């Protein structure tokens, strides 16, 4: 059996990833469920439109809220999918390729989402 039993250098990365999943998970418990409650249940897609979002982003509170949620959710999700890929993809080449694509997609969308939240200019109300 290759590798079995050989002690590998411990980097502590997996320990920190494990802690992060629990801390971010608890933060998302409030952020994501709060988001669902406000944007999908109290309000829903019938009332949400450009004007609604513009009014919402006029105050820094919701921008901060969304930004925090975006970062926590994205890193939590990327790390979650990383564990899934590590569980099932053993071949070195495929493992590197799938992990690299995951990180690239995650990074690009995190940047895109952050830009959308930070740079949005609500049309100045009369």
């Amino acid at each position: 059996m290759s590798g079995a039993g050989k002690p590998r250098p411990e980097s502590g990365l997996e320990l920190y990833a494990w802690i992060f999943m629990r801390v971010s998970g608890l933060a998302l418990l409030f952020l994501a469920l709060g988001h669902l409650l406000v944007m999908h249940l109290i309000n829903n897609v019938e009332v949400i439109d450009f004007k609604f979002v513009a009014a919402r982003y006029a105050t820094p509170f919701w921008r901060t809220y969304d930004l925090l949620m975006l970062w926590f959710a994205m890193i939590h999700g990327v790390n979650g999918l990383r564990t899934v890929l590590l569980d099932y993809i053993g071949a070195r080449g495929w493992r590197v390729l799938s992990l690299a694509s995951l990180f690239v997609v995650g990074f690009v969308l995190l940047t895109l989402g952050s830009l959308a939240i930070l740079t949005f200019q609500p049309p100045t109300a009369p």
Partner: protein
Amino acid sequence: MQVTLKIKRFNPEKDKEPWWGEYKLDAEPTDRLLDALNHVKWYLDGTLTYRRSCAHGVCGSDAMQIDGRNRLACKVLLNSLGSTITIEPLRGYRVIKDLLVDMDAFLEKYRSVKPFLIAHGPEPEKERLQSPEDRERFDDTTKCILCGACTSGCPSFWGDSEYIGPAAIVNAHRFLFDSRDEGGEERMEVLNTLEGVWRCRTIFNCVEACPRDINVTRAIGEVKKALLYRKV
């Protein structure tokens, strides 16, 4: 009662693919499944191969997948099963023949956690004493018989055979939490890796499979927590 054993057979010297052998026999409801297997081997088909030794749930030889769950054939009574019983070898190990699997990799991982007392300093004149409370701390994990039912029932292990597996972690726990042992750091080095305790997803299949009723996932959780407070 009449029972039918459906056994997954495979002889690598003759068969390309595993096949199902069906054996009908008369048995007492209070017979163990191992008795039924012995009956098949002794009177119906002598080529059937499986491991068994003590036949009393102590040696851990006859772990196999019985009706889709890992158990010891000597600890399962026929009256707790249906009239058709499906028997397969343990998952995730190479099948040598029929129900006999290659446990070398399993035992190599067991060895990697150094499952023996490591103590430095001068040797005491008599035995190394320990309070009953300190002994209690790792009582659960002393019960392991290395049957392999837990590791072979673990989905993390199915996906990745490099995972050190619940059985090895249980045996590491037995020494990590022993007040007389000083080998913690050496063992943690092996356990604090991707293929160590962090591959565990707390699925509890190991707990369901353990014939000795060890709370395996709890033992793994205690090792994780020990790592957490050592580092943070």
